[in-house]
């Protein structure tokens, strides 16, 4: 077997194992309850007969392993069981909201990724200048500011004062794409401002490292233009670290979306998760956590796979 295939398969197996363990933790966490879900629903004063009836209805009389396998196989087909709060199937409850969340994260990524790559390149080319220092200062600010601080400043400026965008990002299923983009612009901008600084700084670091290498100096000495040196010689080699940074930040977006959704009252998965935690609606929390965790793990896995694939030493073994 070629070494690259071996490395790829190992990483894939590791990703699958992580996913399995994390899903088990999410499912079994509820077992840590002092009683079980049945006593939690009916309260301490419930009689033994009603408890037993509810346990049978919820399938709690089965051993934990069987219930876990049922839950995971159900989750793969979009069946997450029933919500405790309103007795509706969770799959239907989540479908629209998951789409909204991924739409918002995608919207933010579409703005943030090209912007930060461009700014990172510029900062690397003109390092040690005022522009560069401005960029590193803004990174510090972006790391320090809570998401809602940025969000409320944007609301104050663009929604309340200028009235360009709505302060509440309300979307409906059959909305036109342009309206949807307009409604989700402020939340997307909030997330963009928070991830861009980090991505920009990592892009800059990756390219600055490469610019110090002998072959880049050689290209410069040959009299090549600066942009050509960057685009043809440096960028292909910086691809792996940059792709890694992008994937990590997309993974971050998936989490950052929770807070931003609450600020803008956006009907997404994060808002549902927070509401369900407050209501202690375990099955919904488990389902939302599983979706967030799986997306996060898969994005990290994708980053690693691309890094492996773009490594020429692995692609052309001696």
């Amino acid at each position, binding site marked *: 077997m070629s070494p690259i295939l071996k490395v790829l398969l190992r990483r894939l197996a590791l990703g699958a194992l992580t996913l399995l363990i994390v899903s088990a933790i999410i499912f079994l*966490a509820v077992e840590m309850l002092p009683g079980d879900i049945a006593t939690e629903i009916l309260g301490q004063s419930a009689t033994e007969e009603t408890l037993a009836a509810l346990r049978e209805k919820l399938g709690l009389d089965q051993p934990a392993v069987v219930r876990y396998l049922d839950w995971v196989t159900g989750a793969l087909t979009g069946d997450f069981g029933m919500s405790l709060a309103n007795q509706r199937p969770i799959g239907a409850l989540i479908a629209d909201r998951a789409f909204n969340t991924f739409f918002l994260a995608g919207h933010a990524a579409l703005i943030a990724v090209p912007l930060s790559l461009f700014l990172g390149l510029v900062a690397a080319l003109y390092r040690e200048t005022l522009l560069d220092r401005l960029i590193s200062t803004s990174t*510090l600010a972006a790391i320090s500011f809570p998401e809602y601080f940025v969000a*409320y400043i944007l*609301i104050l400026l663009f929604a309340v004062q200028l009235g360009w965008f709505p302060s509440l990002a309300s979307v409906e299923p059959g909305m036109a794409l342009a309206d949807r983009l307009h409604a989700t612009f402020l939340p997307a901008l909030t997330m963009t401002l928070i991830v861009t600084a980090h991505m920009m700084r990592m892009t800059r670091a990756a390219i600055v490292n490469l610019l110090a290498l002998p072959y880049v100096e050689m290209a410069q000495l040959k009299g090549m233009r600066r942009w050509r040196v960057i685009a043809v010689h440096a960028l292909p080699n910086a691809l792996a670290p940059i792709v890694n940074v992008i994937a990590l930040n997309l993974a*971050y977006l998936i989490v950052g979306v929770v807070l931003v959704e609450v600020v803008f009252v956006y009907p997404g998965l994060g808002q549902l998760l927070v509401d369900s935690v407050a209501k202690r609606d375990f099955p919904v929390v488990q389902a939302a956590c599983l979706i967030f*965790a799986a997306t996060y793990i898969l994005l990290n896995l994708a980053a690693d796979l691309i890094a492996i694939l773009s490594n020429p030493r692995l692609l052309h073994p001696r």
Partner: protein
Amino acid sequence: MPWLTHLRSAPPSALIGLALVLAYALVALFAPWLAPYPEADAAGAQYAPWAAPHYLGTDMLGRDVLSRMIWGARNTVGIALVTTVLAFLLGTTAGLMAATVGGLADTLASRLADVLMAVPSLIFALLILTITGTSVVALVLVIAVLDSTRVFRLSRAVAQGILTMDYIEVARMRGEGLFWLIRREVLPNAAAPLIAEFGLRFCFVFLFISALSFLGLGLQPPTADWGSMVRESAKLIAFANFSTWQTATFGLAPLLPAGAIALLTVAVNLVVDWVLRLSSGLKE
């Protein structure tokens, strides 16, 4: 005093950071004497304007906002500090032990940390808080455990670097015990990176607890806390209007506590930057 000479040569950014951190600490320590009104009781009419005696107005229950900001420093910063200390005790102990003992214990602890870090802490924290319910003890414990994984990683890596040194080999051959090794040889050499990490972890924990409070799942009312204050005053922003000072304060209401959170994080980061530069400069 080597620290005093370092302080004299500190860059202005670090001095500003130190001064701000000190100011926050003083406000937190002396909150009962500084705050003009009690933390949780109504002190006047609802939504009073920004004028004496309520310099930052009152909130929807008539509580003095200035007093709640001052009490908030004590509650929010205090709990974040306790959590960070706990995470550090847990993380460094496990990390240093894992590196020194090695073998199966090291492998097991590292894999456990890997699993906990494979999922964003916010998701894990929300899952656990659903089960435990939102109490301060649960909040502190959950975040401390989740955060200790990163401290574990760092202290283990730092300790492993130190353990390859010759003086460790000598001490081992001399027959020194495990705890003597950790306390006398490893810990003093690992101090600088760990101090810097403490600052960064504190920022992270502080932002994390504030975020949970903002979501309504952290510190519970009537405790004054900056995260919950942002949440409570957020609706006012819709009435903001910059034509007069009084209506402009509606917009500032949620920004005030959020800004207090942001400023402290910036200040700690400035100090950490300086400590990191100092410790890397000392090594050269």
